[in-house]
């Protein structure tokens, strides 16, 4: 069976709330870039990247929006039907970090279009995750592993 070294489970609604906030923030990045506020768009993209970095490294259980969900929203909801392994959403945070950093780096030569394209990709993943419970790891992990980017022993998750 799976789950060899599973950490404690988390409320699956936490990552979906987190993804919803992230999706809205990427819409704001795109709006700022389209309106010509390039510096503001860049700063917000860097902020998003920093949050991704934190939760990809510290684990999604320590995600700041997740902590807000746990402290403020979760007490008002019914308890979840079951808890989930935090590994899949933590992997998704790593993917989000990668896409956002690409946008930030390409901003230097190409300008705001890089933030718009990377922001749209990040929005799409976060929106699908939040609204449709889309599982990014399910769709792209094996693609990356099969071309050898991930999956060799010791380098499992981002």
């Amino acid at each position, binding site marked *: 069976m*799976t789950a060899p070294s599973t950490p404690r489970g988390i409320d699956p609604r936490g990552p979906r709330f987190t993804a919803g906030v992230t999706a809205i923030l990427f819409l704001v990045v795109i709006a700022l870039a389209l*309106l010509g506020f390039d510096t503001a768009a860049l700063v917000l993209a860097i902020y998003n990247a920093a949050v991704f970095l934190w939760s990809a490294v510290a684990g999604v259980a320590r995600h700041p929006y997740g902590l807000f969900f746990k402290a403020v929203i979760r007490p008002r909801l019914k308890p979840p039907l079951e808890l989930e*392994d935090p590994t899949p959403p933590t992997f998704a945070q790593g993917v989000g970090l990668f896409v956002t950093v690409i946008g930030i780096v390409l901003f230097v030569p190409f300008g705001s279009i890089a933030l718009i394209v990377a922001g749209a990709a990040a929005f799409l993943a976060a*929106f699908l995750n939040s609204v449709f419970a889309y599982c990014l790891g399910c769709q792209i992990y094996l693609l990356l592993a099969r071309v050898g980017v991930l999956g060799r022993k010791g380098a499992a998750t981002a």
Partner: protein
Amino acid sequence: MDVGTVALALGGLVLAATLLGFLHRATQGRARTISDARIVSIDGVSLGGRATLLQFSTEVCAPCKSTARVLDDLAARTEEVTHVDLDVTHRPELASRYRVLQTPTTLILDADGTVRARIGGAVRRDVVIAELQRVLAA
């Protein structure tokens, strides 16, 4: 770009994302009958006497757990049907060999280990039961 155009662009993006979401959801859990059947043989995996539900999972796959529960339960209720949950997180060569692109992916094997059906994404109980009955009847 003026504010109205930007609002329109963002609205279009949200609409496109919503359509993609419904499209993706519609493809998940569908069973595909396999015609160019091949025999599955994986070291350390023993097959069921009449059929095997072979599930491919990874550590970064949340719906793999619920799929494993459904398949485990169906295997327990059906004589000589085995559920095998194969974690390919560190074995991408197995994923390549069986052309697994997403997890969970479930292959339904007959008594000989020949692949008869393939289900991409989280399984639906009624779909698995229908496919399993078809394989067991053959």
